């Protein structure tokens, strides 16, 4: 696994400024400013329909923001298509598991390395020898990545038949294979019990170190997000409700109210899931 040198340039890796998006009459996002610095884990929480995934879609390019800009590594990427943002080191996961489910585990990880596979797709058809060398490397790398998430033994299994939890883990392995600098994770902890969520937290901290990643994380599992985040945002109704240190945000009266619809002293925020 090639480890990219941490860039020395200061400033945020990922920044959205005044990002807004409207769907017909619905203001899904209103002037959202989000900032993630290098090596940081940024958590985003918020009730259902708050616009968290919509924000991800604006950042990664699936939606075009009605107004506002997205900057990535100092470059304005607002107008770029999804795959070009990926080329620059942006990777994301999906709520409903972003994998090619009809293919095998191994094929998925190999496909995900698309950007690392450096030979012409056309030349490879007509027998360029470089292709077979690179293919061997690609496979070895795929196996190494799968071993990292303890899924190496599933190489030939079709993804569709795997349990949900395994698919989630595999999805993270696949985006790691794209060699990203920023990882946007959309509810990686959904469906996990408290212990598994703990493990996931450790795993994310570990891959941050190992691959020098910046992670932006959406999850409803507030204790998980609070534990591993360096900075936290709470979205509600398309707006940033509050931001700051994880513990401050978690206990912020507005956040508790948004989640539970009741006054803060009526409930313990720790029970919020």
């Amino acid at each position, binding site marked *: *696994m090639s480890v990219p040198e941490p860039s020395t340039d200061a400033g945020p890796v990922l920044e959205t400024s005044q990002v807004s998006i409207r769907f017909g009459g619905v203001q899904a996002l209103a002037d959202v400013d989000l900032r993630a610095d290098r090596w940081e884990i940024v958590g985003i929480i918020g009730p259902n329909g708050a616009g968290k995934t919509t924000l991800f879609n604006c950042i990664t390019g*699936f939606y075009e923001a009605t107004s506002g800009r997205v900057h990535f590594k100092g470059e304005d990427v607002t107008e770029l298509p999804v795959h070009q943002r990926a080329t620059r080191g942006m990777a994301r996961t999906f709520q409903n598991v972003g994998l090619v489910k009809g293919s095998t585990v191994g094929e998925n990880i190999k496909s995900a390395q698309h950007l690392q596979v450096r030979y012409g797709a056309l030349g490879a058809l007509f027998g360029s020898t470089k292709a077979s060398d690179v293919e061997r490397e690609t496979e070895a790398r795929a196996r190494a990545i799968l071993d990292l998430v303890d899924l190496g*033994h599933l190489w030939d299994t079709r993804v569709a038949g795997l349990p949900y939890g395994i698919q989630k883990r595999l999805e993270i392995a696949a985006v790691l294979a794209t060699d990203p600098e920023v990882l946007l994770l959309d509810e990686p902890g959904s469906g996990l019990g408290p212990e598994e969520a703990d493990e996931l937290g450790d795993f994310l901290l570990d891959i941050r170190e190992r691959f020098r990643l910046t992670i932006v994380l959406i999850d409803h599992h507030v204790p998980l997000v609070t534990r591993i985040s360096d900075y936290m945002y709470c979205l509600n109704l398309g707006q940033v409700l509050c931001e700051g240190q994880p513990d401050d945000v978690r206990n912020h009266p507005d956040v508790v109210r948004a989640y539970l619809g009741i006054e803060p002293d009526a409930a313990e925020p720790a029970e919020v899931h």
Partner: protein
Amino acid sequence: MTAVDPTLQLDVVEVPAAEAEAEAQAAPPSDGRPSPLGWAARALAWAFLAWLVLLYPANIASPFEVPAFDANRMSEAVIFAIIGLSLNVLIGYAGQVSLGHQAFVGIGAFTSAYVVTDLTQEVVLGVLVASLVGAVQSLLLGLVSLRLTGLYFALVTLVYGVMAQQSIFAIESFTGGTAGKIAPRPTGFESDYRYYYFALIGLVAVLVVDWRMLRTKGGRAILALRENPRVAQTWGIDTKAYTLFAFAVAGLFAGLGGGLLAHRDLQVVANPFDFNLALVFVLMTTVGGLRNRTGVVLGSLFFAFLRNGFLVEKLRLEEGFGPIPGPLDVIDLSPEFAPLVFGPVLLLVVLTRLPGGFGQLARPFQEWLAGRRFRWIPAEQEVTINDVRA
């Protein structure tokens, strides 16, 4: 990056029950190596297949006497397999249905004939130019598909095919009008028997390219973008570029098939390249089994032999065809229509009972020939769900 220690995979990791189950599915218990007798049987089977494909059609080391006419039909079947593989790239890999493939093939046929007859070039060159022209026209049609998918794209290809018939095929200097264009055979492959080998070389080339495609970057990108374009994009795959790539490859194969067909017939006329043919192409590919190379080849051979009357003759079904006796004798059931009768029936079977098509039927034999156990392998359930991009 360090090389992966192969023993790593043998480490027993604590796996949850569900995972262990999945693992069990993935790696069936090793069924041991075949006995010497088993190997002998397999060697015999391989030898028989090699004889059937390489020697039988040319009456070499064969107790049978294949007439030249039938050898010609076999060439046609081989060329149909090339066309089937072309459609497999479009429908199977990229998820775009082409109902205008007869135009791809027809333009390839006329191009090759034109290059050889009017420009007096070698046949090999003519066929190569036909492939390139096929790739280019397919690319142009592919540009449309970036906007339209599914049913709408299929309609566009249908219109394209019919339009090509009415316009391009009507250019007399290119197609020679109703008389058609002369398309001589390559030197050394003039006889019907020898031309079979010429076509076979084409099929082998297409199979190799197809095989390489699935094992490299381009093929993986196409498969990923058919099933999940959003995920493909986040992996950095330029979905537009790779859709066009699939079209180019499909056009390349179709053009090659067209060129080979032209020189088989010695003369190309526009008439046979009609919508009927396009339907046969789609049927043979689908019934053969999308994304299954063996299946597509078998399906194409089957439909080609059904269409050119070879099967009807060999199975002595002539009485079922021809003019219907009695008051309905105006209806002449030509074997050419047989695929359109059998096709939908087989399609129903494929959709309901055999999602992997002929390819699924062939799988156990393939497993056995490869030295493993003869065993039924159920088709992937999703096969019907994700075939065509919505």
